[in-house]
C-alpha cells in the first residue's frame, strides 16, 4: 500500500485515468478492516482522502475489505481471486453497498483508482 499522498499523486498524475473520470463528482467510502476512508473526487481528480471519524460522514457507495485482502490486491502480480475487485466480490472477499449507479457507470475508473494504491501497473 502506498501512503495516502502517494495514492492521490498516482491517480491525479495519470491523465488518461483522470480524463475517463471527468464526469465524476462524488465521495465514496473505502474500508480497510475497521477504518473507513472518504475519497472525494472532483471531475476525475481525487481532491482528498480522509479518515471517517463520525458515522454521519458517508459516501455515495462503500467498498470494504480486510487489510490482508487489500494487501494481496495491491501486489505487483495479485494472486487469483484478489486481482480485481469484481473477482474479490465473486469470492465474497469484499463487500460493496450503497448507491451503485455511479460505480457501475464508471466501473473501470473506480477499479483503476483502487488498484493505483498498489504496485501493479494495471
Amino acid at each position, binding site marked *: 500500500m502506498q501512503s495516502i499522498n502517494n495514492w492521490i499523486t498516482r491517480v491525479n498524475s495519470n491523465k488518461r485515468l483522470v480524463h475517463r473520470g471527468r464526469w465524476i463528482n462524488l465521495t465514496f467510502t473505502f474500508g480497510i478492516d475497521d477504518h473507513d476512508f472518504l475519497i472525494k473526487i472532483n471531475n476525475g481528480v481525487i481532491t482528498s482522502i480522509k479518515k471517517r471519524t463520525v458515522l454521519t460522514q458517508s459516501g455515495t457507495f462503500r467498498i470494504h475489505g480486510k487489510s490482508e485482502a487489500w494487501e494481496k490486491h495491491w501486489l505487483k502480480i495479485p494472486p487469483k481471486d484478489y486481482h480485481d475487485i*469484481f473477482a474479490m466480490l*465473486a469470492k465474497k472477499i469484499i463487500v460493496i453497498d450503497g448507491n451503485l*449507479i455511479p460505480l457501475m*457507470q464508471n466501473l473501470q475508473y473506480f477499479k483503476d483508482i483502487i488498484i493505483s494504491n498498489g504496485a501493479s501497473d494495471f
Partner: protein
Amino acid sequence: MKNKDVNFEDILGRYLSITVDDEVFRIYAEEAGEGIPLICLHTAGSDSRQFRHMLNDKEFTKKYRVIAFDLPWHGKSNPPEGYHLKEYKLTTDLYKKIIMSFCKAYKVDNPVIMGCSMGGRVVLHLALEQSKFFRAVIALEGSDKLEAYYDLDWLHRPDVHGGEIQAAFVSSQIAPQSPVNYRHETLWHYMQGGPGVFKGDLYFYWHDGDFEDRSSLIDTNLCPVYLLSGEYDCSCTPERTKATAQRIKGSKATIIPGTGHFPMSENPELFKTYIQPVLEEISKL
C-alpha cells in the same frame, strides 16, 4: 498493386444463411486450414475474432480446418428480422439448434467442437446429445453449473453504457499476467456488443444452460471431453471445472496457470502450449 504484394492473413470470411424454427439467420464465418474440421464458439457477448490467433497459426491449420462463426446478434451475424420486437434471450434449445444448423449448412464431417465460456457449456450438452456427430468436444472455461455473482440488469439500462460496463465486468476475468495488448483487444470486443446481447447470452450461461444433473450421462468413449480453464477465471473457476470433470467420467481437465477466462485471445502464446497437445491427441483418435 497485385495480391502477392499484400500481406494478407490466411483467414477467409464468408456469409451463409441458416434457418432455425422458421427464422432465417445470416451468419458470418471465418476459416483457415485443411483437415479435421474444428468449430470454434466464442464467449457470451463477444464474437469469433477471439479465435484469430488459432486461425492464423499454421501449426494448427496444417492439420485442422479451423472454423469460427459469429452467433446471431454477435459480430457480423445479424439478428433475425423482427429482433426489435422482442427481448433477446439465448436458450439452450436455440443455441444447440443454431450450432447444429450451422454445422449441417457448412457440411462439416465429424468435426471437433471447441467453445469458450457459454460455448464451453453448450459443448457439454452436445457431447451428450450429438456424440455420434462430433469427434470430440473441448470446453474452454466450461462447467456444467455456475452461480451468478452480479445482477444482469446492470448490463442493459439507459443510465449505464453497455459496452463500457461489459468490458469492466469481464476485465475481472483476465489474468494480470496476460499481455496488455491482448487484454485490451479482448475487452474491445465486449465494448462493441449490441444492447442487451451479453445479458441475453448470460441467461443461457447462468440459468437456462445448467447441466449438472445430466453431465454424468456423457459417454466419453463415444465423444471424448476435454476441459481447460484458466487459473484466474473468477466466473468459471478452476474449482468448478474440476467439479464438472469429476462428474464426467473419462473427461480430461487441465488448469492453465497464469491466464483467465479468455485463454485463446488474452494470452494466445500460452494457450497454444496447452491446446496443441489436446488437438494432437484428438487427431489420432
